[in-house]
């Protein structure tokens, strides 16, 4: 690891001015991703600005809105009684990721900004367009079993590994980004950018901008929400694929609203907007879900080793939506 300078930020303004206009510097929150990448030589900051003591660990539920501070830990968000009651999809997504001790250190912002687990990105001896722009991507012809099938580009097929981001995506969350110029609010869906020919640019976050909080509105009355994750082992593993969903049925049992997001398949949480629009107003059935999801996945561009993800994500989503669309009295909760 390269030697680096370190500074503990005493205020938000302090933190921003210590990073902005200083190339090669980075914010340090829980450090569970950044320190790992520094050990691997993937991240080589000249200086770290420790934001972990800033007053950004708030978690409030007021006027129909939930606001989560950038530094609220994954563990406290998952354990929050209101999140567990009103947004179980979010608690479940966090609890399905990492380990108990990692979730205690990991912050909300750090989770959303964690880097891909693509092995080429993590191995500095290999080319990688995301890590070393223009160096090439060995994944298409090499190991791509865990990589993306939707929204990928010829330059990069890496996936965003955050579970929490997938759940926040179906909650229609926004993120607040603060710079010296002021604060802007961006939809989480627009926060992650398509890789195109510049996969090193993953989000709209500018250097020096600080993610201060995440916010989302209450779900409609009667909404049910869940997260389901497929892993190579039962616990403590990143998603092969995952599904977050919100379902609201009308008085006649038809789908009033449905939101579906996928993890492990794309460089961002993948909202299945086409399927959502197609399902609205229809009477739920496994056959309908399956048909509609198949149409959404027509745009998938899988490679030989990850072709299985197409059927896997379709089948797991069909099962999850079928569970959620059961009338409440006989709903059987399965995981």
């Amino acid at each position, binding site marked *: 690891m390269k030697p680096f300078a370190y500074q503990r930020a005493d205020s938000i303004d302090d933190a921003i001015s210590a990073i902005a206009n200083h190339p090669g510097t980075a914010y340090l929150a829980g*450090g569970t991703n950044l320190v790992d990448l520094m050990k691997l030589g993937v991240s080589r900051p000249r200086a770290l600005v420790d934001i972990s003591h800033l007053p950004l660990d708030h978690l409030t539920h007021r006027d129909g809105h939930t606001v989560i501070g950038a530094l609220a830990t994954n563990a406290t968000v998952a354990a929050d009684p209101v999140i567990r009651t009103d947004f179980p999809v979010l608690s*479940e997504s966090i609890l399905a990721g990492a380990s108990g001790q990692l979730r205690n250190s990991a912050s909300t912002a750090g989770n959303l900004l964690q880097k891909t687990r693509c092995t080429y990105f993590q191995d500095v001896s290999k080319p990688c367009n995301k890590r070393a722009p223009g160096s090439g991507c060995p994944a298409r012809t090499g190991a791509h079993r865990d990589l993306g099938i939707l929204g990928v580009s010829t330059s990069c097929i890496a996936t965003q590994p955050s579970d929490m981001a997938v759940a926040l995506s179906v909650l229609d969350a926004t993120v607040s980004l603060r710079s010296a110029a002021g604060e802007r609010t961006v939809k989480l869906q627009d926060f992650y950018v398509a890789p195109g020919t510049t996969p090193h640019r993953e989000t709209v976050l500018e250097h020096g901008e600080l993610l201060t909080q995440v916010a989302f509105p209450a779900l409609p009355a009667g909404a049910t929400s869940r997260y389901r994750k497929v892993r190579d082992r039962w616990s403590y593993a990143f998603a092969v694929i995952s599904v977050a969903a919100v379902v609201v049925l009308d008085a006649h049992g038809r789908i009033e609203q449905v939101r579906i997001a996928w993890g492990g398949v794309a460089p961002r949480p993948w909202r299945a907007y086409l399927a959502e629009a197609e399902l609205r107003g229809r009477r739920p059935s496994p056959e309908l879900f399956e048909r509609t999801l198949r149409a959404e996945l027509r745009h998938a561009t899988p490679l030989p080793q990850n072709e299985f993800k197409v059927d896997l994500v379709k089948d797991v989503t069909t099962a999850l939506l079928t569970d959620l669309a059961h009338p409440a009295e006989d709903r059987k909760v399965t995981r």
Partner: protein
Amino acid sequence: MKTDHTSEVTLRINGTEEKVLVDHRVTLLDLLRDRLGLTGTKKGCDHGQCGACTVLLNGRRANSCLKLAVAAEGATVVTIEGVADLTEGDGLHPLQEAFVANDAMQCGYCTPGQICSALGALAEADAGWPSHVTPDVTAGVKSASELGAEEIRERMSGNLCRCGAYHGIVAAITQVASGSNR
């Protein structure tokens, strides 16, 4: 003296205040083992993947291999060397006793991390935190005393044991979770 690449940090480790000058690259794990001689805490993977380095940081379990020592300024740390002092009396902590009684180790390399992690996990359950296998996340759990083997396995999944002593580990933690001697 502080330079661009070093800082002085003060931590409270197992009840003793320690003031040390650290290179910013030094993790809490390396500080404990190499500078302070507290070699009970183990390095397995050094990347957050095995749990051997688990300590209690400000009362919660954390991977010391991913925590920069400089970022732990002001923190209170309990390592395996300080676990026995968390309870009254001169002997071992009840959880340590239970590990011995249940044959919860073979080579013992993962044991300090397992014990610190289990202490954290029991406190989390006592606070009502659900886990991935809790049937209803909304309800959570009432306390650690209601945790069955499946819950303990899930909550301890961040701690790997190369010897595969999991059976004894789960038995030891279950014994302490269900007892009142914590």
